[in-house]
């Protein structure tokens, strides 16, 4: 029997791997045979993710992706230690709820550093021949907030729209090397970020349109695995919607 989502022998970098969709994706990719390289800020929680992975040869690196200027050197070290990559998942991201009048430049910029600028810089560095193999697949974890707004999420929505926007020209640039790049516009997934949203007084009624319920992180991980695998060879330069019906 063949497994069209088999990732045996693939080396995949996952940011935001200490929690949420990033952690679930890392575990899933390891079960599909990939060698997974984890990164996030919190070393302890990265260690927990590492302990959940299937198989051998995985690695983790603690790094604060807001340090954009250090990303090139950081990635060089990862490649020197682990060889060139076959895939990349940018799951690092923060959410905040700030009404427009409180969303000043400093907080907008701070959020864009993690959610967007780090993504753009990582893609720039990873897409070099010395860092990634031809036929690689890159994925940004985006959100339905990219195209449907909710009150107090202007910065978050803008950061996800930026991710969805940047991949289209990049997909064309990288196509000569058969490298694919996509984002996934997830609906609300039952992660720590969702719990934080509720704790901070987030309005759950805004998500009542998600009629298939709050998504399971493992199901989110399956979508990511699909886009990394050869099963999705026809898909590039697009934002795949995985929203439990929210936008329909």
């Amino acid at each position, binding site marked *: 029997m063949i497994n069209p989502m088999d990732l045996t022998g693939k080396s995949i970098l996952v940011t935001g791997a200490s929690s949420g969709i990033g952690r679930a994706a890392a575990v899933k990719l390891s079960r599909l045979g990939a060698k997974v390289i984890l990164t996030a800020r919190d070393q302890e929680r990265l260690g927990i993710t590492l302990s959940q992975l299937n198989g051998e040869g995985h690695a983790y690196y603690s790094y604060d992706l807001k340090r954009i200027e250090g990303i090139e050197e950081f990635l060089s070290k990862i490649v020197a230690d682990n060889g060139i990559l076959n895939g990349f998942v940018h799951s690092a991201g923060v959410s905040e709820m700030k*009404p427009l*009048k*409180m*969303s000043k430049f400093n907080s907008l910029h701070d959020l864009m550093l993690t959610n967007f600028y780090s993504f753009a810089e990582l893609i720039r560095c990873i897409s070099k021949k010395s860092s990634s193999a031809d036929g690689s697949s890159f994925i940004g974890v985006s959100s339905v907030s990219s195209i449907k707004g909710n009150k107090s999420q202007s910065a978050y929505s803008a950061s996800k729209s930026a991710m969805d926007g940047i991949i289209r020209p990049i997909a064309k640039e990288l196509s000569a090397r058969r490298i694919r790049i996509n984002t996934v516009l997830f609906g609300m997934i039952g992660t720590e970020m969702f719990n934080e949203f509720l*704790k*901070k*007084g*987030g309005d759950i009624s805004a998500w009542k349109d998600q009629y298939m319920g709050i998504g399971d992180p493992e199901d989110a991980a399956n979508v990511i695995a699909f886009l990394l695998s050869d099963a999705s060879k026809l898909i590039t330069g697009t934002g795949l919607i995985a929203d439990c019906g929210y936008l329909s």
Partner: protein
Amino acid sequence: MTNGEKIDLLEEMLELKSGTISENTALAEISVWDSMAALSLIALCDEHFGIQLTGEDIVKFRTVKDILDIMVG
């Protein structure tokens, strides 16, 4: 920061004329006090005092003074 200065911050946040609210004003009496104002308060307390307020904290507030009391640091 004095209570007067904290009230100034709240009035600016709520876009109220200076002198509209005082320590004893009940939040229920402030027409613009709503869920968005609560989110603004979370952002304001984080920015000015480094305090991470939660929705649970805010629903316990009854008067302006309840807010002023946590605006420390």
